[in-house]
């Protein structure tokens, strides 16, 4: 997994900080346990000295652990805030009127993702976004809880019925990034996948135009079928 947006860059950095912190703690406990067990065996013989520790050493160890936890907390908040920062559209990106992010309504439904673009165009499964552009997904769900997850581009977010959940990202490189829904949503949950295609602004606009035309053509065909009486 390689991050391809400013937000996921920060998440990746924090991931490795967290991994280091976790490794330090786990190794300290397991290492200490193994060393102590190896050195202090004894099947029989005199009872060892019945020593126990006072509160002083507990305070020192607890204080050290507290400082460690505080450091992890501060780093987490710093990087989480950076990961949430709305990334401004860059020079290679698509200009949206008013400097607003490109808003795309994203609907989770068993077991598909539907993406609605600003100009009445929509697509299923495949999301096409312009590169270097601030994109805002407004997630809703029509049925059960779904989790939208394209780990290279953005944090995971739930689409919950009755609420709108926003996630903002800016893709730095053209390409196709896959993702998979990450909350059990019924029988075809494992097949509920999505792909984000990051393209140039021109290709994005061309895509929206062709989607609109195809949707219009499909609607015309339906209208014609109804007029001809071929569909009740």
């Amino acid at each position, binding site marked *: 997994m390689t991050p391809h947006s400013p937000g996921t860059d920060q998440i990746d950095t924090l991931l490795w900080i967290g991994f280091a912190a976790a490794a330090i703690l786990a190794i300290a406990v397991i290492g200490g346990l193994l060393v102590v067990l190896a050195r*202090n065996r004894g099947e029989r013989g005199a009872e*060892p000295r019945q020593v126990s520790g006072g509160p002083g050493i507990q305070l020192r160890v607890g204080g050290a652990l507290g400082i460690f936890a505080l450091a992890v907390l501060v780093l987490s908040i710093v990087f989480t805030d950076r990961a949430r920062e709305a990334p401004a559209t860059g020079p290679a990106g698509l200009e949206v009127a008013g400097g607003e992010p490109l808003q795309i309504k994203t609907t989770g439904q068993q077991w598909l993702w539907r993406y609605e673009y600003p100009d009445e165009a929509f697509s299923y499964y495949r999301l096409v976004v312009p590169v270097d552009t601030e994109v805002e997904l407004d997630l809703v769900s029509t049925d059960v809880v779904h989790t939208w*997850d394209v780990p290279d581009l953005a944090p995971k977010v739930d689409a*919950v019925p009755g609420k709108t959940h926003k996630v903002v990202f800016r893709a730095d490189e053209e390409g196709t990034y896959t993702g998979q829904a990450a909350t059990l949503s019924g029988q075809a949950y494992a097949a509920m996948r999505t792909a984000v295609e990051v393209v140039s602004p021109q290709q994005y606009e061309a895509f929206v135009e062709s989607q609109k035309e195809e949707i219009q053509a499909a609607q015309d065909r339906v209208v014609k079928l109804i007029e001809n009486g071929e569909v009740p």
Partner: protein
Amino acid sequence: MSAPTRNPELVVDGFPPRRARWVQLATSADHKDLGRILIAGALGFLFMAVVELLLMRLQLAVPENTFMPPVTFNRILSLYGATAIFLFALPLALGFFYYVTPLQIGARGTALPRLGQTGTWLFIAGAAVLYTTFLFTPPEAGVNPLPPLSGLAFLADNGVDAWLAATGLATLGFVLIAIDLVATLRRLRAPGMAWRRLPVFSWAAAISSWLLLVIGPVMLAAITMLMVDRNFEGIFFAGDAGGSPLLWQHLSWIFYSGAYMLILIFALGAIAEIVPALARKPLFNRNAVIGSLVAIAVLGTLAWMQNMYTAPIGLGWMYFAMIMSLALIVPFGLIFFNLIATLSGGAARMRAPLLFAAGAIAAIAIGLAAELEHSMVAVGWRLQHTTDSTAATHFALVGGAVLGGFAALHWWFPKMTGRTMGETLARISFWTIVLGILVAFVPLFLAGGEKGQVIDAYKFFAGEGLDAYNLIATIGAFVLAAGIVLGLLNAILSREGGRPAGHDAWGADSLEWFALSPPEPHNFDLLPDVRSPRPMRDIRLAIAHRSAREDQPAREHQPVA
């Protein structure tokens, strides 16, 4: 020293004829019988959970497997979650608390035995409800059945209703047992058994019981609301009608987080009995360990929103959960430090309980370290809902409930049956379980952390770098299963065939070793005055002191002055 034997003067005529053994057991309100029912039931459901885990791992052995249809996978997944938590880990912990605590505090029984009896049989009833769903439709809404998926509109058959009834009955049973334990610990401690002298495991029982009195009703409320939603047109969780699906997430995660902590408190409490006894030293600092257990119960439960980083809740709430989670570093770290410091300078006898205890400490440490990483908000956005979180939870809970549970089982087995569990088989099962945990769950850390494999999915796709990880994890699950089955087999074989243990099997310091093995129905004929946190050691020293005075031979039945 041999513990007190029956006084011949106490034999009287006119005892009612003994009933058949199973009638005796099924109608008993004795905490030892009920504790054994809980422990035996829990270990039976451990076996079921292992079978379900293996079925799921078989399906996930190769990409796009068609071994079972998705609906079957979802059903097994739902059964696995309910079995592992409600029918194995929680009743195992409560069974040991219920069996051991009255003995440790020098009580002749529990304060409200009928409550404990009702609770135990409610748990059995819940288990029966869950497993009879095989006859109609098993639940298929997942480990935590989130509405709206678990609502009537999406799962209209009886499976979810059965899940709710089953977990509701079991949870109600656990709450009743917790009430009995709280009352017993408050009212029935032996003379001199002040709170400051209470054994750590009894402290763990007290903390866990109070915790259950908080989280149990929360889960029962959530279950009731979902039942109302499903059967009586309620709208508690209906987002479009004024309710909120998030309400279920909050309530259920409060329970699950608290239960997670309860299982770890049980394991660490048992380990804190085993380690000092087998190292032949007092616990390095009792007060720090007990205080830390209290802190774990409080902070761990308050961190419930750690499971909801992807949900539409405010960032402030996520930071609140993160602060609570990261604060847990201090109490858990202090407990590990004190256990290691107890072993340091000791003379450890590496018997099976200590082996399992050490394994449990290691596995819990890895699992909690990984959970720490998941609790960092931005990392949670990436790692939660992946197999990385599955692996973290399984390290901590298999470490706590299986390794820690087996440590407790090997430790108190002599007290319950009068026989020691076979040491050779114990060692084989221990190393097999450790190997199994590593091979089964380390690949899942990598598959989730590196490749983002999602949880609960009935299949994964080829060409995404997941094949090898999942195949290895499946092999590891079989190794783990073999180790667990060997451990269970050891317990079954040792009930009749184990080496006779004697009453004071390990030279431990707490009062349950003053009773016979297995204890009399009334636990103790006579009780010593408790003068320190180590009453059994006081007794041993006093007897050694008297034996040294040759003019006056040791007398056994006398309480030690």
